[in-house]
């Protein structure tokens, strides 16, 4: 019994140590961002690697999510004769919730896991130690540009996801189900508020971009330097980042729309 408690305390202790290391890591990598201004090329490279490579999955997913929303929404709304509000339904769901959340989940799975594996492998193959011995700070040189690129990419990807989702919804509603085109767009235009809706979506995606990049890079940097350690870290990135996204989404929604 006391053995169990002992083990439990030890894991709690190591969890807190990890959280502490995570904080230090964050400060360390943020400290490297000013030095990136004269070398923005490093960030551009990562924007390409992280952002552009996630583009396909985000676009395809956005299109399908929008189409499904169109179909499901139509079935419900048509019973009330309110199918002309379909545009509003699709747009609000995407802008407020599904866009930021689903894009972030996809981003965690596609780019986050890749970041963790990349950094973890750099650690396992002593590339990071090697850099340290060359008097180059590996966090500033390797982690900070990736963090900044992740942080910039996700809001942009979210915007693309949302746009394609709206287009998918339109495609199902207007040509397929015969909803009136003018009503579809005009109601959407009238009821989606820039400040309340779009801004809240942007805030969410910025927060998610920060958190997912942080988790992914920290997991890679903190991974045990073996192939098994890297594979476990990659899994942890997807799990922790997804949970963080969903949890934070609730908190942010409560803060912005709860009152």
């Amino acid at each position, binding site marked *: 019994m006391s053995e169990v408690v002992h083990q439990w305390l030890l894991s709690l*202790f190591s969890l807190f140590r990890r959280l502490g290391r995570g904080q230090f890591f964050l400060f360390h990598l943020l400290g490297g961002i000013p030095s990136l201004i004269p070398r923005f090329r490093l960030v551009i490279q990562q924007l390409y690697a992280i952002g552009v490579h996630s583009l396909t999955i985000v676009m395809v997913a956005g299109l399908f999510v929008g189409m499904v929303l169109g179909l499901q929404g139509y079935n419900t709304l048509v019973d009330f004769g309110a199918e002309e509000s379909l545009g509003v339904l699709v747009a609000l769901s995407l802008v407020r919730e599904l866009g930021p959340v689903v894009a972030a989940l996809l981003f965690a799975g596609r780019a986050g896991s890749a970041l963790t594996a990349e950094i973890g492998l750099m650690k396992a193959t002593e590339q990071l130690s090697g850099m340290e*011995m060359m008097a180059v700070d590996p966090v500033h040189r390797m982690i900070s540009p990736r963090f900044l690129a992740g942080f910039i990419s996700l809001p942009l990807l979210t915007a693309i996801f949302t746009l394609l989702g709206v287009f998918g919804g339109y495609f199902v509603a207007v040509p397929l189900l015969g909803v009136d085109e003018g009503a579809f767009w005009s109601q959407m235009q009238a009821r989606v508020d820039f400040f309340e809706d779009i801004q809240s979506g942007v805030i969410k995606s910025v927060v998610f971009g920060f958190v997912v990049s942080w988790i992914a890079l920290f997991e890679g940097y903190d991974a045990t330097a073996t192939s098994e350690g890297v594979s476990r870290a990659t899994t942890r990135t997807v799990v922790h980042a997804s949970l963080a996204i969903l949890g934070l989404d609730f908190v942010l929604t409560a803060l912005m729309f709860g009152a």
Partner: protein
Amino acid sequence: MAKPTPQRKKTESTRGRGRRRSQKRRAEPLVRIRDLEFSHEGRYGTCPSLFKGINLDIHRGKIVAILGPSGTGKTTLLRLIGGQLSASAGRVEVDGEQLSTLNRKGLYRLRRRIGMLFQSGALLTDMTVFENVAFPILEHTRLPGKMVRDLVWMKLEAVGLRGAEALMPAELSGGMARRVALARAIALDPMMVLYDEPFTGQDPISMGVLMKLIRELNQTLRLTSVVVSHDVEETLSIADYVYLLSEGQVVGKGSPQQIRQAQSPWIQQFLKGEPDGPVPFHYPAEPFHTVLMGAQE
């Protein structure tokens, strides 16, 4: 004609003192380790002590070998010299500076003058051979592009791989990767190069090439070289001085000649690679017959 002014006299005398000091400095070992103790941080606390009071000196311009079986902490020792790890007790001094007193900036300034060849090569996998060798130069200097290019070519020429500049690390053989890493380690003209098991896993030809390179670079660049290894013959044949490390202690030191003639049974077992001796073949365990008898019951 002009009488030496007091001013001038003063500069001369200070210069003289400076020269004497630098001569004294030159006679001092480049690396001095005293009573070094160290243990790794484990997951839930400290691991058992890896070094139990090590003393060693690495003299300037020499090739010093540190030999010991796997897991004695040879890599750890190099990391302590490079300041990536810090001693639990005792002192590590490099070029007169005690590492524990240096701040991060001082440490980085020192490391610029130390090249390290990692066991795995540690080349950056997403860069070509050329970019790898250029990396430390670009990070630490603001030389114009053409000069960087010439420098990189010079370093690659020194290791015989100028023709391989466009290859990616994954396309290199093990020996070539190590030579590229060596070119990178000497890119900033260091005062010292640390070699972590340079011969491990190399075919005889690459081994010969690396031995020749270590000797030649040590002479032409006036380096100090520290070679950590468990390949006894190769290491003894290039070293000027040898330390033998086992179980956290220095168990033997001297010129390769002296080491070969040492009487200690442990040293003889290690040098000749005998399977049994002071280092037993069996990992400590219960006697086998009692285990078997126990299993029958």
